[in-house]
């Protein structure tokens, strides 16, 4: 099998792959078939929660591809995630139709509330699912392309790049907070009813989106693994370790960086699009620089430059976040902060670095 061939030398990847396959089969069964009284029953809450982690893992994977393999520390990946989410949210908003609070056939509630008479031009077409899905990928990749083309062409690297990506997501956050932008301002987009005609609240729909998230994560993992194993991936690694030398050998460094950056943005956007129907809301808070930096810590805790480490990190950090913010909310920031400090000082290779056999050889 093609996928197993890819994962032949990738134990972590194989484990992740099996886990995802198991989840995609068992979760629907445990949620839909097993009776509620059984110990094996999974509540819809858990399904949605794990589904949310899956999209986070996809986002972490996207970041690991650019940071772990290409050395581009993007503190603005949350922006691509949120843009994908907003595209999905716009489709879901248009699906509400007359069932909104104000019952307007075309305009979403917040526009009626703001006394808008017409749909803004950029909302056209979002009532079509295919168009919305196209936009989910197209809008963030276009942004990533323009931004990356400008940045890599003029050789903005390292810290400077990190800071301007942060500025990018910060600027987008401020912009989306504005009511005049036509994206619901502070409240964002919410109160969704259905997706492709299926009720978004029903267990069956949730399970389908969950399975789709598993599939997307697995496919993205294979794609990333394929890229890093390919000749292109080797060049990208070379760029990470010695950008100037790679340039002197004759490679057009900026093109490789741009390609990998745009691909990563597309993955982040897909993660965002899967995230929104599961949590049921998207608001400008997703653009906050803090969110993007948190993604970096998932990758750092898990272990960067391994792909499966990013996924493990995303699950681990978010699971502990769910646990702690529920029971001891004031402790959470201490824990998160310590994770940042400890993982950078003591675990430069992340948690998976503890288990990898060839950890010593790399150093």
């Amino acid at each position: 099998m093609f996928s197993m061939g890819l994962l032949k030398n990738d134990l972590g990847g194989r484990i992740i792959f099996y886990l995802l396959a198991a989840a995609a089969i068992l979760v629907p069964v445990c949620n839909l078939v097993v009776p509620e009284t059984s110990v094996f029953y999974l509540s819809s809450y858990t399904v949605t929660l794990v589904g949310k982690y899956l999209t986070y893992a996809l986002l972490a994977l996207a970041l690991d591809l650019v940071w772990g393999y290409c050395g581009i520390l993007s503190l603005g990946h949350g922006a691509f995630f949120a843009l994908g989410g907003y595209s999905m949210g716009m489709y879901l908003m248009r699906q509400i139709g007359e069932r909104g609070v104000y019952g307007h056939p075309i305009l979403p509630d917040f526009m009626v509330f703001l006394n808008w008479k017409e749909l803004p031009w950029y909302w056209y077409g979002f009532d079509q699912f295919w168009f919305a899905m196209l936009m989910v990928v197209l809008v963030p990749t276009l942004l990533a392309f323009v931004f990356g083309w400008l940045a890599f062409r003029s050789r903005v690297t390292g810290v400077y790049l990190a800071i301007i990506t942060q500025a990018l997501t910060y600027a987008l956050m401020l912009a989306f907070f504005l009511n005049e932008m036509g994206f619901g301002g502070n409240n964002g987009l919410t109160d969704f009813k259905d997706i492709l005609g299926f009720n978004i609240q029903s267990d069956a729909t949730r399970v389908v989106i969950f399975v789709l998230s598993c599939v997307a994560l697995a496919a993205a993992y294979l794609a990333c693994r394929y890229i890093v194993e390919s000749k292109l991936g080797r060049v990208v690694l070379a760029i990470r370790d010695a950008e100037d030398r790679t340039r002197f050998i004759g490679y057009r460094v900026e093109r490789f960086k741009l390609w990998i950056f745009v691909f990563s943005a597309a993955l982040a956007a897909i993660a965002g699009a899967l995230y929104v129907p599961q949590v049921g809301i998207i608001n400008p808070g997703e653009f906050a620089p803090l969110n993007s930096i948190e993604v970096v810590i998932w990758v750092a805790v898990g272990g960067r430059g391994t792909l499966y480490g990013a996924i493990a990190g995303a699950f681990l950090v978010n699971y502990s976040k769910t646990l702690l913010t529920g029971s001891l909310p004031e402790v959470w920031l201490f824990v998160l902060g310590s994770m940042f400090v400890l993982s950078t000082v003591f675990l430069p290779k992340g948690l998976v670095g503890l288990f990898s056999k060839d950890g010593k050889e790399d150093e």
Partner: protein
Amino acid sequence: MVNGKSQLLLNRAWLSVFLMLIGCLLTIAQAQSGTNTVEAVVSQDAFTELIHQLRDAKLRKKPALVKQLGELQDTRVEAVLQALLDGRLYYTKDDRRAVVFKENSEKGYRITDVVSGTLIGEIGKRQAKKIGVNNTLRRILRSKLAELKLDSDASEERLKAVKALSQKMDARLGHLLRDRLPGEEDDDVRAVMSLAIAILDVRGQDTGLRLDAIEILATDLSSNIRNTLNDLLRTNADGSFAETDKAVLEAATDALKKIDRQVWLYGLVETLFFGLSLGSVLALSAIGLAITFGVMGVINMAHGELMMVGAYTTYVIQQLMPNYQDSFILVAIPAAFLVSALLGICIERGVIRFLYGRPLETLLATFGISLILQQTVRSIFSPLNRSVSTPSWMSGSLEINSVLSLTLNRLYIIAFALIVFGLLLMVLKKTRLGLQVRAVSQNRSMAKAMGIRSERVDALTFGLGSGIAGVAGVALSQLTNVGPNLGQSYIVDSFMVVVFGGVGNLWGTLISGMSLGVANKILEPFAGAVLAKILILVAIILFIQIRPRGLFPQKGRAAED
């Protein structure tokens, strides 16, 4: 009618009689006949009579009484009218005497008799009733009071009075002012007086006089004057000017143009001032960052939180020194510097020294520290915002003219930022530590070879940068509320300033901070505050493409990674 002087004498006479009687009254202890005598005697005084009428009159009758009171040549009138305006004029319910209630006391009101000016004592709140006023009456009271204050000894009082009167000039007031103009000694008061007279003259018939008046009016920028000039240019329904005198029309148009130009110019100065004050906050918060970032290659994401710590230090110092509300800030500045600097040194020794040469990792580690600091502060001081009061010498504003006034606290912040910048420059250029810092930043291994203990220099540099963050926090505490999120809101901005100015260049940081502040304030009126900020961010992102190393990049080998 009796002339002023003898009236005054008469009043004094009555006053003494009254005082004696009050004395008797206290000893006789509320004899019914005594009270009657007092009323009988006092009512013969015109002032007392008017006061009594004021006490009993309906609201619409009161303006006439106030006018009569104003015409009395009596020193007590001003105090009474002021008290009535302030709503402090009461009368006692039992003996219906008009009294000025001075202040709230434990028992109720501490009261003074209007007629005698003596302190009567304390009474319960229910024993006194307020003499009512409404807005019409207040307006009249204000203008009457202004007239009375025209003869005040303090030039400030006179200035205020003339300004108040110039709001609605009439012929009678014109005479009042014209009489006093030659005798007036204070230049400011004279200027305001001639303006007020000019407002009157412009409405007259004599063309020459009107043109002169317009010339005088053109020297002032207040809205009152502009309204007067605009009135001259009023048009009829068919679009023709109501004013028929061509020369006056022309002069008025020119004068308005001149005024508008000046107003525009002062508006520009004000925008510049606001921009510079915002810029100095930005520069202040970025200077410390520029040191740690530029000299050590460390991206300190906890910089904002070190500012927050400085602001909280200010808050604590203020709580510890409740009796020194004007001088606590002088203690707070060094205290905040020390606290933040020590914290910074701890961070450097505890975490950052393990991460040299890995700038992206320092970014993550210090971000973690920033989260811990935020939560610590939230746990100690609660998540609520605290406010630090501003010393009295820092509040208020410097009024240049009627359209331009510079708030003092902003002025102080600009000065403060420049002083901090100057001191830091001195430290870096003139001291031994500064020399070592520069040496390490230029070539670490060579500096080490020359015997510089680079680890010590690193710790001290980081401490210096952090201390300046703390000092910036003191400045911020004077501008906004102090809360756990204080630092977070400035961190992106201060990074922008450093990146825009060029890493490792203090002058670049200052210039970029100031120019970003001014640009922000210039854009704000057109685009709104949020959009202005977005535009600036986008502009910086684009700018970095053209000059990837900022406005003033480091040159030479040290600039290469």
